[in-house]
């Protein structure tokens, strides 16, 4: 039982990290569907640096930093296209996923099948993610920064009137969101499965995006959402091959469950919790 919970936490850690990043984005009014792509880039950047800085004892801190940087850089692209050029956020995120998966697969080809000997421990990531969730909850509800952030997501025109720089806040939120997605990717390639393979993110980024709706944009509830899906992944592994049910059923279970969970959120009217200005570019002088 305790073991199952521990495994669920380890499976859920990348989900939690990516989900927290997406919550931060969306609280500021920007949807970024590029999480999957940013995760892939983070995973590659982390692995490449860990591997490149010396086989056997690569520099893991540098690797994590590289993953954070890769995610941020990719997110800036989304920020520029959607905030400065006011393009459709949904399509931009989609394009970012294509670009991220594509370029990670392209540039990562030379690392395919290479082992990483020095594997960092899991717990700093897991504890860090939980700590971050708590911190983010505090920032949202107990600081002036959080208030600015939420007002930019709820009513950018009013925030603008109060002297808040809407673009700057949104750029910042998107950048940090990207960094967290990159970190989630690095967890996969450094800790969870210390290696690089094309497509190793396997839809986790999308599940993280769906999780945001499920947990109603709340960082604290994201912890439980991530553990729940982590448990599901754990069970998928445990039950595979031990039951007469074909493995493809287990493989598609997380995705089916996401649909179910979204339907349930819809049934409960959860979409009403979404930040008011979510998905809409802000133009000055227009309401």
């Amino acid at each position: 039982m305790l073991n199952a919970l521990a495994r669920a936490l380890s499976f859920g850690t990348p989900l939690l990290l990516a989900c927290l990043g997406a919550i931060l984005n969306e609280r500021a009014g920007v949807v970024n569907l590029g999480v999957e792509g940013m995760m892939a880039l983070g995973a590659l950047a982390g692995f490449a640096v860990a591997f490149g800085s010396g086989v056997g004892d690569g520099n893991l801190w540098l690797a994590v930093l590289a993953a954070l940087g890769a995610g941020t850089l990719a997110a800036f692209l989304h920020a520029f296209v959607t905030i400065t050029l006011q393009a459709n956020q949904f399509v931009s995120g989609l394009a970012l996923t294509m670009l991220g998966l594509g370029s990670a697969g392209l540039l990562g080809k030379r690392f395919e099948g290479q082992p990483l000997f020095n594997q960092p421990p899991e717990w700093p990531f897991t504890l860090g993610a939980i700590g971050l969730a708590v911190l983010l909850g505090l920032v949202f509800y107990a600081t002036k920064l959080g208030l600015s952030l939420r007002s930019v997501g709820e009513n950018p025109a009013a925030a603008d009137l109060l002297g808040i720089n809407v673009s700057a806040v949104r750029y910042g939120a998107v950048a940090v969101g990207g960094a967290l997605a990159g970190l989630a990717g690095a967890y996969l390639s450094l800790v969870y499965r210390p290696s690089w393979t094309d497509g190793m993110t396997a839809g986790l980024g999308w599940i993280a995006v769906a999780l945001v709706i499920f947990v109603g944009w709340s960082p604290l509830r994201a912890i439980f959402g991530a553990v729940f899906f982590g448990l599901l992944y754990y069970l998928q592994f445990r039950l595979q091959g031990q039951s007469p049910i074909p493995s493809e059923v287990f493989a598609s279970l997380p995705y089916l469950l996401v649909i179910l969970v979204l339907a349930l959120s819809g049934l409960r009217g959860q979409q009403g919790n979404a930040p008011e200005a979510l998905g809409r570019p802000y133009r000055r002088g227009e309401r």
Partner: protein
Amino acid sequence: MRLEPLANPSRSRVLGVTLAALGVAFVLVGGLFAAYGLNPLEAYRAMLSGTLLDAKGWQEILRRSIPLLLIGVGLTLAFRTQYFNIGAEGQLLLGAVWAAGVALFMPLPPWLSLPGMALAGALGGALWCLVAAWLKSRLSVNEILTTLMLNYVAQSLVIFLINGPWKGRDARGYIYSDRFAEYQQLAVLPGTNVHWPTLLLGVLLALGLQWLLTRTTLGFRMRVVGENPEAARYLGISGVRVVLWVALITGGLAGLAGVGEIAGIHHRLIEPGQLSSGYGFTAIIVAWLARGNPALVLLTAPLMGLILAGGDLLKVSLNMPFRIVDVFSGVMLLCLIGSEIFLRNRLRWGR
């Protein structure tokens, strides 16, 4: 430097901005070629000379344009009505599954076999898409997430079938279904893989849906729902019904694309990765490039067909991963949507 709003962009402006965006995209992808360790000019030359300057290359472009045409035409309608169907990939697979089911297990008279497969395939794709449309209209569940999740489920379904109950008798270690009979295969242009009945159907559908969109009541409703949902409510247009129609059409066309691939080229149900080289995603660019006009897909589908065929060449001749196609798609899409601000505004220098 500042932006000045334009009421209605002229046609030449749309064309100019689109071409400029594509130009920027090709420069950016060139940068990635360089990062990979290839001379960008060299890579582009390999892509173009192996496709446009080669008879075999033309066939490849054409073959790949067929699914892009079918899916892309549907997606223009979907995007026009703000229904973001990202699940064409899965709908294509379901179309292939249903068609293969008919081919393998339904004893139809030979002359009815292909029509039966096409009908079943279209139905399979449409129903797969309707799940998401229904959830959107009933429970306002975001269709981007559901259609995408259904892609993964569709992949698992195909693998389950060809690895389990539908596994071919001659397949041994591999996973694919039995081969279709001669009369269950689509006609091709002699000596090529170009299944022309599907190509013809795609062309007719592009023109037909353009007519539907601009000349019929349903088309009018679609445009209003997409452009101004409030006006649609005021006019008493049921957004729910329009979304269901659009889902039915786009899903059905993606399903037909799947039928074309298995009945025209592979002649059996095969692994998802081989069945489609990301047609469902590439078709998003096809539709976006056409800017909501189904007829324009006749131009944009071959363009992306060229990129897919070129990606194949880079894979074979320069040993590059096929992922380069995703890079192209992502960069082109980003440049296209990023350039749209220059359609709605004029750039003025000075204050």
